């Protein structure tokens, strides 16, 4: 009994070793790339990997899906601690603060410079460059998937109730919802009530701060300061729209999902990511019209910010791997790859060159991307380059907690936002204490 159990355990251990081995045993120019997408997005990434491998004689990239954004970051952390990290990994934007302070990163700009593929940061669209750049303007990771917020509307439904133009202001948006509601439409607009849409983008487009120290871009001393001002106004409007049945929570729709609820024609309007366009298009059920995110009447409109992910090169690989990683990054940076990815997914092109090709191409670009790009090109101030704050994933959960409590009538929206701010600031304080003695990372492999 015992010896067979022992043999079995040994066998598992060996099989686990073998499963983990390829990364270590393959030729030097092989490396792993972990990405964080599924469905059509994963297909697009896989085909970029396959094309790179087909075109390259000496390099081979192994592309592995690692689940969701959270799972990918979590596995990267675990793998790094165990010394088995991939050479390249896709991390979502709200993980940037952790990655920058991790000491685990080989900065992309240094790598590309050293390997002879220098990338000029000013190649990138302004909104994207500012979102990822450090204080002194360096890009330590390579932007990869970027999406921004636009307004989707079901043209037929709007026309049917006499709304001929897409709402440009929240006032017009409310009027359109009311018109739809009055005509018996059960779902005038849909939202999943997430902070990326309702806090980060709304504040960006109104040019309002979320946190001090330039939304955290200037350092760990940043603290939240969104509970007053435009966010409070907007969320109180949201609460009103919600209670009147104008802005329906995605969870109450048949589709159970914001993008799908718009794509299947159930809801007439949706403020959603440009990346949702691919799904709307694929469903092919509605005549979708896309426009800029509304602003409050009489206020100045700023650019929206982006959300998405960037690619991080990790330390601790053998020296022969990094030239190959650099070639792969240069390949992904190529406008043709960006365009392919944008067309298939609805994500935005990243560089001026790619944008220009896309906008002048004979086959017209997807509407959502055009509007999204226009939205990024609008004037900037300090507050529309996203946030760079610690524990953002937890903060988003807190924000949702509090807002749901407010919508459920447990507290007023004003109190909810104040609570979210206080709880968020406790996280920021802790993040600052955690990293206060963190050793400065060296700028190399």
């Amino acid at each position: 009994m015992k010896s067979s159990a022992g043999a079995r355990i040994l066998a598992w251990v060996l099989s686990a070793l073998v499963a983990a081995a390829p990364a270590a045993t393959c030729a030097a120019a092989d490396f792993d790339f972990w990405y964080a997408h599924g469905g059509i997005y994963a297909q697009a990434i896989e085909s970029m990997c396959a094309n790179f491998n087909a075109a390259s004689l000496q390099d081979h990239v192994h592309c592995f899906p690692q689940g969701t954004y959270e799972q990918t970051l979590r596995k990267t952390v675990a793998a790094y601690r165990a010394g088995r990290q991939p050479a390249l990994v896709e991390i979502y934007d709200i993980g940037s603060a952790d990655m920058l302070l991790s000491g685990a990163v080989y900065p992309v700009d240094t790598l590309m410079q050293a390997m002879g593929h220098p990338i000029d940061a000013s190649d990138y669209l302004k909104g994207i460059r500012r979102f990822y750049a450090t204080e002194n303007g360096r890009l330590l990771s390579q932007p990869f998937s970027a999406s921004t917020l636009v307004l989707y509307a079901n043209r037929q439904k709007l026309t049917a109730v006499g709304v001929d133009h897409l709402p440009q202001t929240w006032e017009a948006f409310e009027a359109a919802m009311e018109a739809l509601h009055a005509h018996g439409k059960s779902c005038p607009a849909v939202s999943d009530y997430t902070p990326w849409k309702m806090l980060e983008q709304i504040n960006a487009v109104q040019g309002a701060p979320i946190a001090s120290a330039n939304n955290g871009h200037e350092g760990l001393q940043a603290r939240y300061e969104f509970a007053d001002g435009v966010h409070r106004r907007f969320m109180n409007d949201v609460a009103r729209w919600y209670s009147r049945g104008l802005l329906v929570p995605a969870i109450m729709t048949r589709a159970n999902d914001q993008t799908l609820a718009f794509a299947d024609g159930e809801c007439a309007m949706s403020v959603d990511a440009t990346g949702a366009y691919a799904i709307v298009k694929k469903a092919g059920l509605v005549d979708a019209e896309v426009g800029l995110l509304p602003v409050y009447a009489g206020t100045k409109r700023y650019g929206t910010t982006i959300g998405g992910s960037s690619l991080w090169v990790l330390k601790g690989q053998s020296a022969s791997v990094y030239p190959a990683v650099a070639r792969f990054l240069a390949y992904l940076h190529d406008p043709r790859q960006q365009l392919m990815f944008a067309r298939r997914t609805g994500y935005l092109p990243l560089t001026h060159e790619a944008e220009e090709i896309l906008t002048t191409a004979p086959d017209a670009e997807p509407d959502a991307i055009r509007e999204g790009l226009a939205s990024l090109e609008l004037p900037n101030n300090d507050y529309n380059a996203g946030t760079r704050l610690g524990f953002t994933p937890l903060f988003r959960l807190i924000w949702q907690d509090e807002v749901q409590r407010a919508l459920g009538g447990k507290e007023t929206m004003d109190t909810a936002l104040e609570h979210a701010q206080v709880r968020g600031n406790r996280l920021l304080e802790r993040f600052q204490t955690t990293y206060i003695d963190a050793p400065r990372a060296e700028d190399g492999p």
Partner: protein
Amino acid sequence: MKSSARFHGHWIPLALGLPQLVLIALFFYWPTLKAFWWSLHLVCPFGNCSTFVGLGNYTRELTDSSFYAALRTTALFAAFGVSLSIAVALFLAAMVELHRRTGGLFRYLLIWPYAVAGSVLGVILKVAASPSIGPLGYLNTLWPGFWQPYLNGTQSMLMVVFAFAWTQIPFNFIVFVAALRAIPAEYLAAAAIDGADPVRRFIDIQLPMLKPQLFFVATINLIESFTNSFAIVDTMTQGGPGRATNILAYKIYTDGFIGLDLSGSSALSMMLMLLVFAACFVQFFVFERRARQEG
């Protein structure tokens, strides 16, 4: 056991026990130690820094309103979930016992839910509870806006409590049925001759004799409500709305895995361990007493 019935030697018992001990050391003692160490430090996820803070993480959690909210939710969930699953199981067992001869089919079928995974049940109930397509949505045609489990904290709590009880009842039911069967029929017959109706008999004779099983089942259910409720919460509500179903085990998961807050989540782990430990201790204590009483 008499020592004459035991074998000599050290190496054989060691060899027999070692595989299990190694496995437990790797997947139990080492992680527990790790959690304890993390709970005393502020650690960076990537391991590039750690600051000793003593009990700082504990005091921080203990002064955080969301900890108490989770604790309250856990207590509510446990109290309602455990009492509901015990009450229903006991009731069904007593009914089946009244039908000793014909109850076989019920005995057979009522156990089935045990085979259904919490996540599968969660998915089924999530769809069934959907206000737009589920049967409960009809309530909204009677009273518009009444059934909104994903916005109304009380309703979502009811939902997860129901689901949890559903998964626990079969186990309790089996234990109760077996215990009721073990009660000699003469006791009940004698009481019946004295004119006690089935309800009286249940309260006066059967219930007191079930005490040990009640206690055992309560402890098991309690521990399950701390831990195995995870699948139900994750598939049905994800702790929402507004943390109304955010039980401690779920908070540990989100803080640790989504928030990468190893220190805080480890401190919570250690505290939940204390809770489970207390529950087990009480059970062990009572068992010992019972064993001593039985001689």
